Each structure stands twice: as structure tokens, then as C-alpha cells.
């Protein structure tokens, strides 16, 4: 394997040598001695027969002499002297040997020939070895350049790319022939930058970490940092060498860091970071504003600088958790100001990770004292409201009960002693108290609605409608009612509240169709065209309807469109419906005409038929 590789390398080197004039004579230094033997043989053979031997000498030695001049290890004069000696010897041999064919060439003659060939061959060998060393170091250098992690290229004085290494080609995505031979200008995004660079180089300046943007083959750009300098050859601008480092990621990071820094700097939240031993590393303007210490005062201090004494344990535990879980945590707590006051804050403690390694912890502190105050005020208000409705519920009804109770007692015990007028008055008192009781109850129901919790689930309205309908048995007694419920899709709602809605709607429909000999109540649905996620249920009756001009009053609390003598009620039913539907995120509206019936529609969130346990399959075809 190894020898094969060696052979391959030798052949490659031989080809490389084609570029030098020496190739004619020997493919390598080891072969020189072979050539020497062959030459001497040829001299003996040809010399003894024909003066052509001299021609061989000439052909062999003169190019060697010239090639010898190219030696870099020995000064050219040294080689020149050697070459001169060779040439002299050659001429001497020629002089000693008579012109034309002379069969008797002397021993001296041959000796001189042998000496000349020997010296020449020695100098050639020297030369070859030198070349070899040079070649090897050149190959090493080439490999070094080619394999470098940094992009390298050479440029001619006018900016044409002479060569480029693999790293540079890979960085930009070009093939060698797409890059080498082209002008560097073609690959720069900003023409001003490249002109500036070329100008600086042309006057012999060295560019250090010059930032530029290069165009990749795929159209994207890369931020690079270029180091370039000029290579001079005997005082002449030979070429420039450019080292191109990809700093795109660095730039990106810089850019991001600038953004983050700006955010951290400008935010009103205090952003503080800690070293692993919980000392303050950074302290932004927000921290200065919120907590009072300046950056210079805070940095290097332990974290309990601004943690109140009784919160130290909590804070330490939180830091520990964040360190262990390496995930942010937030909580509401208190922090200490420089002036010794406490401030209500919400804090987020996050781990600071560098490539997965924890290098610290940061804490973002937000002042929530204003929110806390509002919350407390709201809680207070809510409590008051609750106390109020509790009082209403409890105390307002007691006197009514007394009024009612004692009117009844009066009638029962002293009825016969009273005249008709007195009894009529007592009746009015009784009715008034009764009605007030109803109003209080409805008002309480209504106010409770916004307090009760909602439990949303997929609900089949048909079941609920059926239940509500059955409960309204009393209102239906002795009446002819055509009640139609179409197939209804399911919706997402709170069962108890939705039942209240349908119960109110049905009771309304029953109430306002009472004057009809044959009442008709229909329930159906339509899809809301714009939002198919929602469904509109409607209930339509042939009752007394209402004047569309007053539709805005229909859903108000205690608002009535009919006189109390005609239809009983407190005017809360539809207000309750509206409040419930609104709490579900839907809406409700009504259409009607006097004596033409009314339609009340409500929009709720639709439930996908395939969702949930009760899968509803519609027939196919």
C-alpha cells in the first residue's frame, strides 16, 4: 500500500518537474549515476568510432551548464565556474582529438571526457537535490495554505485573483474556476470598500482586520475580516496576500448583543446578573431607578444588598432551584431599596448559560406596587360588593316577609271586620311586597352571574332545551303550542348557565305567545358565515313581538317593552341571557315586529362534531 502511494507520488513529482528544463536529463537525483554510466559508455562507444561523440558532449553538457545557472543553493558564479571548467575540458578534448574520423583516440582524451562528464553530473546531482528539497517545502507550504482554516488568496496588483485556498472557496461557495481569474470586485458587496482596499494596497499599506461583506454564490452575503499585505519583488509590487476570516456569526452576535444591551439599558425593569457566588455582576439603569444604588455602588456587592432580611432564604432557595433545573422561575416578592423601604416586585430568575454551562444567574425585577395597590383596591371593592349583595339578600327580604306575613295574618284574623276597600288596600300592599321580593331575587341572580365560575364543555343543547321545556310545564298548561326543535349542533358552554339561558328564552316565548290561540315556538340554528367556528341558535315565536325601535332596551336590566298588566315579569330575563352569553364570549340579538312575533338569536362557540365522546355522524349521500 505504502510503496504504491510512494510510486504515485514519484510520478506526480516527475510530472511536476516537467516545468523545469532539467527533466530532459534526469527524472530524479537517484538516477543521475545511471545517466553518468550511460554517458560514459556512449562517450567510449561513439568517441572511438566517430567525432559525433563530441556532439553528444555538447548536447549533454551545455544545457546542464545553463540549468546549473538556475541553482539557488550555490551562487550563480560558482555554477558558472563549474560550467566554465566543463566547457574548457570539452574544448580541450576537442583540440586533442583531430578533426574527422580518427580511429586512434588517446587515453588522455577519454580521461578528460570522463572527468567532464563526472563533474557535470555531480553538479547536476547537487542541483537536483536542491530542487527536491525546494519542491518538498513548496508542497508543504501549498498543503499548509490549502488546508488552512482561514480563507487565503493572492491577488495581482490590479485585483485579479491569482489563487485561492479551499477554505476561501468553501466560505463563498464557488468552484475554483469561478473564483480564480476573476476580479475581486465581483465578490464584494460594497464597491467603495473594495476600492478603498485596492487603493491602500497599491500604495503599499497593510490592511488589518478590514471588515467587508462578500457575496456568496448562493446570493447570500458573509461578513468577513480581511488582513492583506503586499508582496514586493525587487522593489516591485508583485502581488497581494489576503487572509479572509468569516465573522458573520460574530457580527450576528454583536448585532444581537447591541439589541439586547439596548433593551436591558432602556427597560424600566431592573436587570441584574450575578456571578456563581451570588455577587452582583451587572446592574442596569432600571435597577438604579428602582432600587436606588448606582451601578458603581452595586457591582461586586453580594446579592443581599437588595434582598430584605426575611426574604433571604426564599431568594437563596430560588437561586438554587434555578441553578439545578437550569430553567427560569418567577415569583412575586419584595425587594429592599437603598433608602430602606420595601417595594412589591415580580421577579424572574434565569440561569445564564454559555454553551450549556451555567456561568451565573440573572434576576429581572419589575415594580408591581401600583398593580398591587389596584389589586387590593379591587379586592376591597369586590368584598364590599359581596357584602352589599349579602345584605340585600338577607336583610332586604326580611321586612318584605313581615309585610306579607302580617297582611295575611290581618286578613285571616280580622278579615270579617274589614270592609272591601280595606281588603283591596291590603291586597295592593301584598302584591307590592311580592313584586319587590321578585325584583330582589332577580337582581341577586343577575349580580351572582358575574361572580359564578364557568365550566366549559361540549354540550348538546337539545337535552337542555328538553329539560327546560319540561320544567315550564305550569306555563304550558291548557294551551295549544306547536313546539319545534330542529337538529342542533353542539356548542361549548357551561351547562348550568346555558340551561338558565334556554329556560329564560323559552319562558319568554311562552309568555308572549299567550294571547295566541295556537302558539308556535321554533328553535333552529344557522352557521355564522364569517366565523364557521361559531354557531348561531335562534328561537322564533309567533307572539306579540316588539317594536324594533326599542330593541336596544330589550336586554337592559329591569327594562320592559310591555306593560306589567299585560305581561308579568321583572325585566331581568333577557338581561340574564345577555350576560351569560357574553361571559361565554358570544353575543345575542333580537328581531321583532309588533304582533308579528320575535326571533332571538345567540352566537356561541361551535364544537367540532368529531370532537369529544359523543361523535355525531351524519348520514352519507
Amino acid at each position: 500500500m505504502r510503496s504504491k502511494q510512494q510510486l504515485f507520488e514519484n510520478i506526480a513529482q516527475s510530472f511536476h518537474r516537467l516545468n523545469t528544463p532539467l527533466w530532459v536529463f534526469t527524472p530524479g537525483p537517484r538516477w543521475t549515476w545511471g545517466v553518468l554510466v550511460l554517458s560514459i559508455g556512449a562517450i567510449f562507444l561513439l568517441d572511438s568510432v566517430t567525432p559525433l561523440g563530441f556532439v553528444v558532449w555538447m548536447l549533454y553538457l551545455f544545457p546542464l551548464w545553463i540549468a546549473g545557472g538556475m541553482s539557488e543553493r550555490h551562487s550563480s558564479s560558482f555554477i558558472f565556474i563549474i560550467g566554465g571548467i566543463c566547457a574548457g575540458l570539452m574544448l580541450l578534448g576537442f583540440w586533442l582529438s583531430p578533426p574527422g574520423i580518427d580511429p586512434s583516440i588517446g587515453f588522455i582524451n577519454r580521461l578528460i571526457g570522463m572527468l567532464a562528464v563526472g563533474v557535470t553530473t555531480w553538479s547536476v546531482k547537487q542541483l537536483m537535490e536542491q530542487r527536491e528539497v525546494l519542491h518538498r517545502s513548496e508542497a508543504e507550504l501549498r498543503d499548509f495554505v490549502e488546508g488552512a482554516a482561514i480563507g487565503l488568496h493572492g491577488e495581482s496588483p490590479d485585483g485579479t485573483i491569482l489563487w485561492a485556498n479551499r477554505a476561501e472557496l468553501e466560505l463563498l461557495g464557488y468552484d475554483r474556476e469561478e473564483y480564480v481569474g476573476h476580479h475581486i470586485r465581483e465578490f464584494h458587496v460594497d464597491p467603495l470598500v473594495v476600492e478603498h482596499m485596492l487603493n491602500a494596497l497599491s500604495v503599499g499599506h497593510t490592511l488589518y482586520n478590514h471588515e467587508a461583506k462578500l457575496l456568496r454564490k448562493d446570493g447570500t452575503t458573509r461578513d468577513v475580516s480581511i488582513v492583506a499585505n503586499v508582496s514586493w519583488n525587487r522593489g516591485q509590487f508583485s502581488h497581494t496576500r489576503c487572509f479572509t476570516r468569516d465573522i458573520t456569526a460574530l457580527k450576528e452576535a454583536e448585532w444581537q448583543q447591541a439589541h439586547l444591551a439596548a433593551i436591558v439599558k432602556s427597560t424600566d425593569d431592573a436587570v441584574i446578573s450575578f456571578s456563581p457566588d451570588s455577587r452582583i455582576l451587572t446592574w442596569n439603569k432600571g435597577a438604579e431607578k428602582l432600587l436606588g444604588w448606582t451601578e458603581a455602588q452595586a457591582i461586586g456587592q453580594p446579592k443581599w444588598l437588595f434582598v430584605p432580611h426575611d426574604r433571604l432564604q426564599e431568594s437563596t432557595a430560588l437561586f438554587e432551584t434555578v441553578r439545578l433545573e437550569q430553567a427560569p422561575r418567577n415569583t412575586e416578592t419584595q425587594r429592599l431599596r437603598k433608602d430602606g423601604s420595601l417595594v412589591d416586585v415580580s421577579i424572574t430568575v434565569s440561569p445564564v448559560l454559555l454553551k450549556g454551562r451555567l456561568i451565573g444567574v440573572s434576576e429581572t425585577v419589575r415594580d408591581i406596587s401600583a398593580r398591587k395597590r389596584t389589586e387590593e383596591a379591587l379586592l376591597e371593592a369586590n368584598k364590599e360588593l359581596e357584602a352589599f349583595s349579602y345584605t340585600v339578600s338577607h336583610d332586604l327580604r326580611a321586612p318584605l316577609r313581615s309585610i306579607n306575613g302580617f297582611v295575611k295574618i290581618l286578613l285571616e284574623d280580622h278579615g270579617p271586620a274589614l270592609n272591601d276597600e280595606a281588603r283591596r288596600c291590603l291586597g295592593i300592599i301584598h302584591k307590592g311586597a311580592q313584586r319587590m321580593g321578585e325584583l330582589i331575587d332577580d337582581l341577586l341572580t343577575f349580580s351572582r352571574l358575574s361572580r359564578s365560575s364557568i365550566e366549559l364543555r361540549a354540550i348538546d343543547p337539545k337535552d337542555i332545551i328538553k329539560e327546560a321545556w319540561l320544567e315550564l310545564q305550569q306555563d304550558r298548561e291548557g294551551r295549544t303550542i306547536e313546539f319545534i326543535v330542529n337538529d342542533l349542533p353542539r356548542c361549548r358552554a357551561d351547562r348550568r348557565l346555558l340551561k338558565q339561558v334556554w329556560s329564560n328564552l323559552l319562558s319568554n316565548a311562552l309568555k308572549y305567545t299567550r294571547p295566541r290561540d295556537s302558539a308556535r315556538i321554533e328553535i333552529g340554528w344557522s352557521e355564522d358565515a364569517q366565523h364557521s367556528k361559531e354557531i348561531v341558535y335562534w328561537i322564533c315565536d309567533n307572539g306579540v313581538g316588539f317594536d324594533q325601535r326599542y330593541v336596544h332596551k330589550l336586554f337592559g336590566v329591569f327594562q320592559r317593552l310591555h306593560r306589567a298588566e299585560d305581561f308579568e315579569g321583572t325585566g331581568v330575563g333577557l338581561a340574564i341571557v345577555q350576560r351569560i352569553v357574553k361571559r361565554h364570549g358570544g353575543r345575542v340579538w333580537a328581531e321583532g315586529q309588533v304582533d308579528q312575533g320575535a326571533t332571538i338569536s345567540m352566537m356561541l362557540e361551535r364544537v367540532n362534531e368529531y370532537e369529544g365522546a359523543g361523535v355525531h355522524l351524519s348520514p352519507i349521500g
Partner: protein
Amino acid sequence: MNTKEPEYISVLLVEDNPDDVEMTLRVFDQYHLANHIHVVRDGAEALDCLFSTGTYENRDVCHQTKLILLDLKLPKVDGLEVLRRCKADPRTKSIPVVILTSSREERDVVESYKLGVNSYIVKPVDFHQFVEAVRQLNVYWLVLNQGLP
């Protein structure tokens, strides 16, 4: 109301509203159930009566009590507290307690049932309904219900 102390009490009515007391007693009277009904006007007195403390010291009048009718909103000690103490004490915990109140508030109902109330009745504004409620209550708890021997 009734100033004379009974020897024993079968129904203890804890109610601060005199009108309600009168109406309730009237119903008891009408249905001849008024025997041994005792009215206390606040929670503290109710507890004294039940546990023979304070003015009821040395008088064990509640050993035969079959029913406690309890209002929730009471002076001094409120109804829920009376209920809690009542159900926590082994002497009184087997006496049925019926809350008879004006409050429809859900938290009152929930809390009462949590504390082990036997029934929760909202006093209707309408007198007829009130009479009916009190009557049925008495029929159930005093006549039909089989208490502890």
C-alpha cells in the same frame, strides 16, 4: 318571646327577627306543634342553651331536643358558628339542624352543608309559602323522621 323557661326543649328556634319569630310560632301554633318550642335571639344564647352555660348553667334543658331551627345572620355569634360548634360536640351532633334563612347566597349553602346541616331552607317572601315551608319542615323532622333513640 316565651319568658318562662321550659323543663325541656324539643324544638330550639334561633332567630333574631321578632316578626319571623312570631310568624313561625303562629305556624307551629296552627299545627299544634308549639309544645316545648324555645326561642333564643342570638347565637351566643343558642350555644349557652345547648351546652348549659351562661344563663342556662345548671339547667340541662336540651337533652330531648329533636330539632334546631337556625337563622344564619345572628347577633354576637353567627349561625354558621353555632352550627359548627353544634356538630363538633358529641352531645349535640346528632340533633338535626335545619337552616331557615333569608340568604340564597351560594357560599352560605355550601358552607352549611359542609358543616353537616340536615336541611337548608330559604324563607320565602310570600307568607303562604313560608307557612307551607315551616309546616312541611315540622312534619318531616318532628313526625316522620326517626331520630336517635
